[in-house]
């Protein structure tokens, strides 16, 4: 699965996710990637987010909207909101991660697996690519 979340010069957020799903998937299985509110979500008042992982759990935890709702309704910063949501995914038994950017340009890249291929580039000049 691959994904991206972006913030443009006008302060607009967007997110997207693309995937082949799971090896040996059957029965027309669809995971969280094409599910708005689960694997992908964007809201200018909060953040833009893309998820990767064991999709069934990310759907059940409504990951994308959950992170956004924690920010909007509880005033949580992005980092904490994403961590709290990922804790819920872990509690259900799901593995994976999320990347997100908020309306101020703060990014988070969190996962409960040993690795997640990830990176960010910001107008502050910061750029980072990491895998483990």
């Amino acid at each position: 699965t691959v994904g991206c979340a972006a913030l443009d010069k006008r302060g607009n957020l967007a997110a997207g996710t693309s995937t082949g799903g799971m090896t040996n998937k059957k029965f027309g299985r669809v995971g969280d990637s094409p599910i708005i509110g689960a694997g992908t979500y964007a809201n200018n008042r909060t953040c833009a987010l893309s998820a990767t992982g064991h999709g069934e759990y990310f759907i059940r935890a409504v990951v994308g909207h959950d992170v956004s709702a924690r920010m909007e309704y509880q005033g949580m910063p992005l980092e904490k909101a994403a961590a709290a949501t990922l804790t819920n995914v872990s509690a259900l038994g799901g593995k994976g991660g999320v990347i997100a950017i908020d309306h101020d340009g703060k990014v988070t890249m969190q996962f409960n697996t040993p690795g997640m291929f990830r990176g960010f580039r910001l107008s502050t000049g910061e750029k980072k690519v990491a895998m483990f």
Partner: protein
Amino acid sequence: MHSYGLVIHAGAAAILRKDLSPELQAEHQAKLSEALDAGYAVLDSGGEAIDAVVAAIRVLEDSPLYNAGKGAVLNAGGVCELDASIMDGKAQAAGAVAGLQHIKNPITLARDVMQKSAHVMLAGEGAEKFARELGYELVPNEYFQTPLRKKQLEKAKEIEAAGGGHTAIRDAEGRISFVTIDDHADPERHKWG
């Protein structure tokens, strides 16, 4: 002017540094950097976040390294079935596609569903019919399939035929949900998406 930027992922996995050769790690670093630069170029020139997202994801979809577009994993029937979605935070508009077999860049079709249809999600043959109406050139499914993914499917089927064993992924209630294998022979190393 607002600060701007982007963040990407190319999958999470139970994969350790020692599982990837230095050469393969360098390939990943370069491709992730290329995707970041493609998206950033859109933003830096005053483009919209939604276009930056598409630009970055297309780089990753076109790479056989990742489970999206070319290099996607195979389903039980030996076919690549692709899903994608996109969302615009300003209008809270969204588009999604599922079960595609012939669309080279699914993220592009997801954006077209959002911008050029009255719907949010289109699936399977209907989604591809919509793509044809928009003038998309469809590619054979073989375009997406790589030798590595074929090998992974064979391995998954062997494990499944043997009863799943410890490589079957169980959910919180202990049900076997599926069997999946990452890019190496060690069956303990599952691919999580």
